């Protein structure tokens, strides 16, 4: 964990009420995709955790949906504004497990941390495929970015307004993969876990207090004992998760 003063480079609405914030973090390097940062907002008591979406040099990006007072404050951030952040939190995905043809499955803003994963897996020579699911066309994010690193990107929308009509589980057919990585709403991840054979890793989300393991606010039961989502997670192996 590192405590950094990060400077906002840009903060753009990339879909309906969904924003990408790029932050200059200097020398900090995201060790593992799936790790998160915890942002201190001046107007809120607790920090706000966000998985890292991508990193280019000293600039990393996070994607967030405007859902409450904290994220509403974030939408007002301008280039040059500074945030106190804790970076390098959580375990992240295990890239060594991917095999030759990993499949990445993202739901909504849950697609974000899979982008850095796709990039790092592609850099290692894996043939990465992605299935990204959204509610409607106005929610669709990052598909062009995924296309840069993936041999195949399938996009679904629940209402059929973009890509294939249906859920991500409707687009898994014939997806022959060596391993899978999933991030999205819990119900979606559960459906994927039930549908998709083979091993994989899932990034969980829980309300957190500190984000670095001290408060035990996000401890959840798993088949491997109780784990702190912020510290032993947020990424858990498929076999560990109790849905």
């Amino acid at each position, binding site marked *: *964990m590192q*405590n950094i003063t990060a400077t906002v480079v840009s903060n753009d609405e990339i879909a309906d009420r969904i924003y990408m914030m790029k932050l200059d973090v200097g020398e900090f390097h995201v060790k593992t995709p799936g790790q998160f940062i915890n942002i*201190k907002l001046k107007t*809120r*008591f*607790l*920090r706000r955790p966000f998985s890292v979406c991508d990193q280019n040099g000293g600039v990393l990006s996070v994607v967030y949906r405007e859902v409450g007072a904290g994220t509403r404050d974030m939408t007002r951030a301008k280039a040059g504004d500074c945030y*106190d952040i*804790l970076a390098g939190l959580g375990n992240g995905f295990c890239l060594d497990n991917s095999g030759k043809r990993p499949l990445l499955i993202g739901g909504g803003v849950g697609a974000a941390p899979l982008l850095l994963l796709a990039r790092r897996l592609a850099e290692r020579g894996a043939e990465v495929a992605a299935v990204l699911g959204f509610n409607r066309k106005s929610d669709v994010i990052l598909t062009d970015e995924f296309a840069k690193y993936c041999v195949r990107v399938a996009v679904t929308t629940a209402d059929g307004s973009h890509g294939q009509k249906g859920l991500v589980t409707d687009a898994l057919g014939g997806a022959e993969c060596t391993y899978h990585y999933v991030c999205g709403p819990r119900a979606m991840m559960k459906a994927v876990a039930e549908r998709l054979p083979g091993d994989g890793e899932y990034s969980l989300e*829980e*309300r*957190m*207090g*500190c984000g*670095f*393991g*001290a*408060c*035990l*606010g*996000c*401890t*959840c*039961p798993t088949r491997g004992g*109780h784990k702190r989502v912020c*510290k032993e997670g947020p990424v858990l192996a498929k076999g560990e998760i109790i849905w």
Partner: protein
Amino acid sequence: MVDLGVELAGLRLDNPVIPSSGTFGYGEDYAGLYDLNILGSIALKGTTAEPRRGNPLPRIAECEGGMLNSIGLQNPGVDAVADELLPALKAHFNKKVIANACGFSTEEYVYVAKRFDACDNVGLIELNVSCPNVSGRSVGGDPNALFKLVSEVRKHVSKPLLIKLSPLAADLSEIAAAAIEGGADGFTLINSPTGMRIDPVRRSPVLANGRGGMSGKMVFPLALRAVYDVYSRFRVPVIGVGGISSAEDVVEMMLAGAAAVEVGAANLVDPFACKKIIESLGPTLERFGFSSAREVVGLAAQTSKT
């Protein structure tokens, strides 16, 4: 140079700043961040006889100026703490710690306190009779029950015994008097008072357990008042805790009568909070005209006993 040393129930501390129980685990998550030996002491996570899983999620909610938690005393049990975690902590912290003993029966309190009393790096025992997040009536709200409990624990414990109380008692003085009569050396004030948030979308409480303990800046005046009342009346050692996030807060708390302070929720927001407070405490005391921390204790407390 301002002398930051204080004395707490016979225990000498290099400075009055202590991370509070439940916000610092058993030290392990902070050990890599800074040299823990700069701390006055460390108050360990509340510990029961048996391991406890704690409450269902969500356990955390937020409010203006603070947060609510309903962890529910998740801990590995006193045997694991005494046999493994306390010895392991010595590698990172070479001073005495404050153990926080919890229980659901007199026997359990006695067992936990006895085990801690036998640990060489425990300097003081906090008896937690006011956890906001476990079911059952809190013994800390009943003077007679508290007197009996403290008397029983006292028989088995030779280390200083501080009782951690909730500020919500109708008559805190009556509760405190019962604890002192039972043999308590002093108090930790306050445990987090219970509160609630409701999610209007789900039309139900945010916390799975409904209620949670409130902490953070907004409880500071409540904690300060409790310390002031109890210290003014009894002049016993008090650890002030609740909403402290700056050296100025430490000075206020000590003026009210706190011999030392615990920093809680501030650690969760800024893991370096205690370090920063300790570093600015000397200059802050100097600014208010003090040459030592210990001379501050109780200067603002009421002089006449009522």
